[in-house]
């Protein structure tokens, strides 16, 4: 699991570089990617948790990014985008694609729908972080 979290951090840093992020921002983005992925992996071990891992992972990415953005006075986007890449359900989309190509229609449909639901869970996690955590930080900062 540690290895996996580390890999997620490497992914975040590599994609951050690809999107022209530099310096400390990159390091923070990597840490956010690592910690959120580790937590998501832990949650996905709970039986019957479904997309809970994806949802909480995205929520953590969004929340930590808003906090980092506040303290570093930078757009939250700079932290969110590299860290969220690992959560994109590319694996499920791929499985769905291969199933369709192999004429396993139902399997393809299942993976495809799972991918869509996973994307939904991630979107809701990000949206919640922006809608709830952001105002909380901004308000407590203003006082």
């Amino acid at each position, binding site marked *: 699991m540690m290895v996996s979290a580390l890999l997620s951090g490497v992914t975040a840093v*590599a994609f951050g570089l*690809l999107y022209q992020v530099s310096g400390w921002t990159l390091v923070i983005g990597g840490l956010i990617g690592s910690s959120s992925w580790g937590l998501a992996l832990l949650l996905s071990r709970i039986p019957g948790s479904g997309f809970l891992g994806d949802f909480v992972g995205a929520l953590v990415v969004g929340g930590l990014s808003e906090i980092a953005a506040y303290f570093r006075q930078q757009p939250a986007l700079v932290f969110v985008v590299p860290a969220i890449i690992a959560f994109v359900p590319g694996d499920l989309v791929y499985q769905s694609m291969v199933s369709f190509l192999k004429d396993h229609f139902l399997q393809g449909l299942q993976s495809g729908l799972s991918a869509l639901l996973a994307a939904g869970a991630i979107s809701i996690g990000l949206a919640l972080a922006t809608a709830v955590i952001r105002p909380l930080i901004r308000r407590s900062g203003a006082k």
Partner: protein
Amino acid sequence: MNPNRSEGQNPIPKVLKVIADAGMALLASGAEVARVEDTMQRLAKAYALDAVEVIVLPTALFVNAGTQTTVIRRIRGRSVNLAVVTAINQLSRDVSRHPIPVDDLERRLEEARNAARYRPSANLLFAGVGAAAISQLMGGSPINLIPAFISGALTQFVRQALRQTGVAGGVADLVSAIVAVLPALAAAHMGEPHPGAILVGGIMVLTPGLLITTAVRDGIQGDLLSAAARILEALLSAGAIAAGASLPLYLYLALGGRWV
């Protein structure tokens, strides 16, 4: 542009133009609508333009200062460059604290637009490392690292080359995805396990991760038009990528290729 309106006589249009350029650079680099509007308003305030109204759409923006002038910008090319977003954000903060002459602002905006870009060859390396890491996250074994690296770097190379030729975004995605699959096919043919992990690694380089993120953030802020447009763009891009990746894989499978 207009000879009757020289820059010295009427400074307000020039400020507006620079503000519009800042907004355009932000939007073209992938910033959310709320950030673009915020930044433009902040700049306008710094230059004592009071009744400024800003409208930002994903493909165009409008700035109006009172009854005087309206500046319109059309946004065509869009890419992801978070360095530009950061630099212009910083610039707008600096300027609202310590105002600088408009000419200086224009110069610093030009610098911000070309902010901290890595060389194209370095980008290939980043894409390769990213793809390799993703392949391991998706259940690949260490033997998949090298083909995944090649796949990521190759995909990025093709995408950069296509971007320079000005091919439409969807077509570029499709062609890049076709190329992204080739190393995975070669690896599968040579008997490597988990070719799927390689394939996903290569394709992740193309994923519209930024579009999804900004779409969600736009939607939550109430910029519905932009959110809808960006979701549509992400879906079209994902469709093009899936179609592009399916084509060589389909041919390979139809020819009886080995795929575990």
